[in-house]
């Protein structure tokens, strides 16, 4: 097969990115004599227009039927060069890339060795590419209905956005009412607008919208299918089950608050006037900040980072509590103008829009800010008999270096955000992953923040990580943009690179059945064979390695191709000897 192929090889210097460490001319000189190579060139920027055009022209001029590009990681430019060779008339899968940037020039500091390795990798690609098979993209129909799980501000926003675009939505909320955690909040930082106003308008529009089916007291029982074609069962009020068909799923299940009683030294549950931020929100909503005995507090201490940024509890920052604490300082001042407010913080995280101004304004009113070391948190104890306040907060103030005792009638604990207790079940249900803290993992933290590893399943809001309202809303809207784009296309194009089971070799042993991280493998009890739902397969290769019968083949990553690649490296090694 090798000798019949006409391979074009293109070695890129990537400006100086590759060229400064790898001798690209030497790589070209070596490669052009390999069997099957019809033309081999090097160029400064292969991915540029002239670079791509060079490949397109050569395909025609030399009658190339395979192309190797020795350049950056295929994660970077494989799509670029696939498109280019497709433009030149070749099947896009007749391309192979040798990564001589990330795997050579960027990680080595010896010119000779980096150049040698580049030759070896290029030779491996040349050996492999004749065994590439042509593939066509496949498409599946797209159901335009969506399932939104969770009716907090994220879920409400996403549902509205889709319904406003005339697409059907099922909004499943496990609670008896909509609104989520925002419904427990009074004013919102940093502009102090009312949460109730924000929510009431959305809830009203959601419940009135004929495109949205709201299902309260409901939970998703099961989900099957794949992008564009999911089926779900919704259980309402503990019994009634509804079957729905949807094309996309948005997970908006939000967060729960950290349990403050875990931090013994703060006395939550022991001292009646140690309250959490949510307890205080409740008071603020009712318009009166009072102690258990009904009296107005004179000394209020707010402690930040409760359960957050700690070696003992959650290591991460909960992001909203610093600004929420400032909001409380304002709120308490309004409800109890004579109160002395102290805010104990570890770092003041005021990164959001308008937040730094909010901090400055709050600091100008008479809140006293004291900083503590997150590894040496303050303690709360009962005040001595006869004192005119009821608790004493002790803190090592690190800016002054002094140990300070603060009188307190009320202590407010800024509890952090945590993944919900059932997040594991939700993750299993929709087949996405969680990080070590239980937050759902996005497809790419920077470039693809609302998609997940499962096509057609999106995440928005505080279920992915602690977030304030603006970020939550932005994410909710982002998910709908992704979904609407797919609905517009009407069908979904899926990569033709997936694993497939050869029925003639499968013994029905079922070793592979629980192996797929994307639940793409089905077992047919009648035929006694397993089969892969190709649109769900991400070609991770797990089942390919796992199948003891060798009945599973990964398209584009066949044993033959991989062995040829290894041969290529060895061939280069023996050419040196």
């Amino acid at each position, binding site marked *: 097969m090798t000798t019949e192929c006409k391979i074009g090889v293109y070695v890129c210097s990537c400006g100086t990115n590759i060229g400064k460490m790898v001798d690209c001319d030497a790589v070209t000189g070596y490669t052009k004599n390999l069997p099957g190579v019809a033309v081999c060139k090097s160029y400064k920027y292969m991915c540029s227009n002239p670079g791509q055009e060079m490949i397109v022209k050569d395909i025609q001029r030399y009658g190339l039927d395979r192309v190797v590009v020795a350049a950056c990681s295929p994660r970077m430019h494989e799509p670029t060069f696939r498109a280019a060779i497709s433009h030149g008339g070749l099947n896009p899968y007749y391309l192979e890339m040798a990564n001589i940037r990330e795997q050579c020039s960027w990680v080595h500091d010896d010119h000779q060795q980096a150049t040698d390795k580049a030759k070896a990798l290029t030779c491996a690609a040349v050996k492999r590419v004749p065994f590439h098979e042509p593939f066509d993209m496949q498409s599946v129909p797209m159901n335009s209905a969506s399932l939104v799980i969770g009716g907090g501000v994220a879920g409400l926003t996403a549902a509205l956005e889709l319904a406003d675009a005339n697409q059907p939505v099922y909004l499943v909320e496990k609670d008896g009412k909509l609104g989520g955690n925002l419904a427990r909040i009074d004013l919102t930082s940093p502009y102090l607008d009312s949460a109730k106003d924000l929510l009431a308008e959305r809830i009203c529009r959601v419940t009135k919208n004929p495109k949205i089916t709201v299902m309260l007291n409901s939970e998703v029982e099961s989900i099957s299918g794949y992008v564009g074609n999911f089926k779900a069962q919704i259980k309402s009020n503990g019994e009634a089950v509804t079957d729905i068909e949807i094309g996309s799923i948005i997970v908006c299940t939000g967060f729960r608050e950290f349990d403050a009683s875990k931090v013994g030294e703060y006395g939550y549950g022991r001292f009646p006037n140690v309250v959490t931020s949510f307890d205080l929100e409740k008071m603020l909503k009712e318009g009166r900040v009072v102690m258990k005995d009904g009296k107005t507090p004179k000394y209020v201490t707010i402690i930040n980072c409760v359960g957050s940024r700690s070696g003992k509890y959650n290591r991460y920052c909960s992001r909203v509590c610093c600004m929420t604490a400032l909001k409380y300082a304002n709120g308490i001042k309004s409800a109890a103008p004579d109160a002395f407010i102290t805010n104990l913080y570890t770092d003041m995280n005021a990164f959001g829009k308008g937040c730094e101004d909010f901090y400055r304004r709050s600091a100008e009113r008479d809140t006293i800010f004291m900083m503590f070391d997150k590894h040496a948190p303050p303690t709360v104890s009962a005040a001595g008999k006869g004192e005119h306040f009821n608790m004493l907060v002790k803190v090592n103030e690190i800016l002054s270096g002094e140990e300070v005792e603060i009188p307190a009638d009320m202590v407010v604990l800024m509890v952090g955000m945590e993944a919900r207790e059932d997040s594991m079940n939700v993750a299993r249900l929709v087949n996405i992953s969680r990080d070590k803290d239980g937050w759902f993992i996005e497809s790419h933290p920077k470039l693809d923040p609302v998609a997940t590893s499962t096509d057609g399943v999106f995440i928005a809001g505080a279920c992915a990580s602690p977030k304030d309202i603006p970020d939550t809303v932005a994410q909710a809207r982002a998910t709908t943009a992704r979904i609407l784009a797919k609905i517009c296309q009407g069908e979904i194009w899926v990569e033709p690179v997936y694993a497939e089971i050869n029925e003639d070799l499968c013994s029905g042993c079922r070793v*592979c059945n629980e192996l797929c991280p994307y639940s793409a493998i089905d077992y047919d009890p009648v035929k006694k064979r397993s089969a892969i739902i190709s649109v769900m397969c991400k070609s991770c290769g797990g089942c390919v390695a796992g199948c003891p*019968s*060798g009945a599973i*083949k990964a398209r584009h990553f066949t044993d033959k191709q991989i062995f040829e690649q290894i041969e290529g490296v060895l061939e280069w090694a023996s050419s040196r000897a």
Partner: protein
Amino acid sequence: MDKKKLQIALYWGAACGGCDVSVLDTNEFILDIAAACDIHMWPIAHDGKYKDIEALEDGFLDLAMYNGAVRNSENEHIAHLLRKKSKVMVAYGSCAHIGGIPGLANTFTREEIFESAYLKNPSIQEGNKTVPQPQTEVDGGELTIPAFYKRVYKLDDVVDVDYYIPGCPPAPEQCKAVLSLIVSGQPLPPKGSVVGASERALCEDCQRKKDEKMIKQFFRPWQIIQDPEKCLLEQGIVCAGSATRSGCGVRCPDSNMPCRGCYGPMPNVVDQGAKIISSVSSIIDSQDPEEIDKILSGIHDITGYAYRFGMAGSLLQRSVR
């Protein structure tokens, strides 16, 4: 000698004798073979000498069936001789096919083997320093014995092989079927075929009920009372059936013992042992590294389980300490 009859020879290399017995185990069929064939050599049943074979014309034999692995220079010498003298060369049994049980010796070096066999063994007289040498000078000349190779080879490592009949030993019915085919003069399958075995794994023919496999603990067969209806692997008993060609008639699982893999790898598989290991690791029901270690500690001698028959033919091939 009736030239219309089939001219055949059977031979054992590094073998236990089981393969030769399996041919006898075809019972009265053996008489049909005797009637249809001239047997020139068959260590267990017929007294053929090397010189008789050497005297034959090249290509004279219609069929040579070689069982056993290639462990020493004599094994290799006879393999070459039989290859030269016969039209069709068959690797008979696991040892010839993939190295078999003798191949497990490849996990040790020759020096280690000699040390434990001749120098440091409770049954060896203390202080013994004698190990076999290919040549020894004695009064009146030089004695030679076959040289013990550094590693065990499967048959096709040393000669060109036409067909493989797997099994340790091959099931007599399969042996019978293959011999009948050859005697019948019907067209033979393509060269290189594995004959007398299925293209699917043993699980296909195993009647035990198969379900999703999630293993929390591995057992050796004697450590649990097994459910006779249920797949052994699902019960935590390492069964190689899913990585092994069917053909034996499900001998082991039907006798409540796990398959050990003697029928060799599936057609697409390069390394049967690697497949056995990956199938076992695919079904462990834990994400926690410590728990996984604990679960795996229930498997004693994973190399022995995975490469019981296939070491010599595997990608690993041998220890190079």
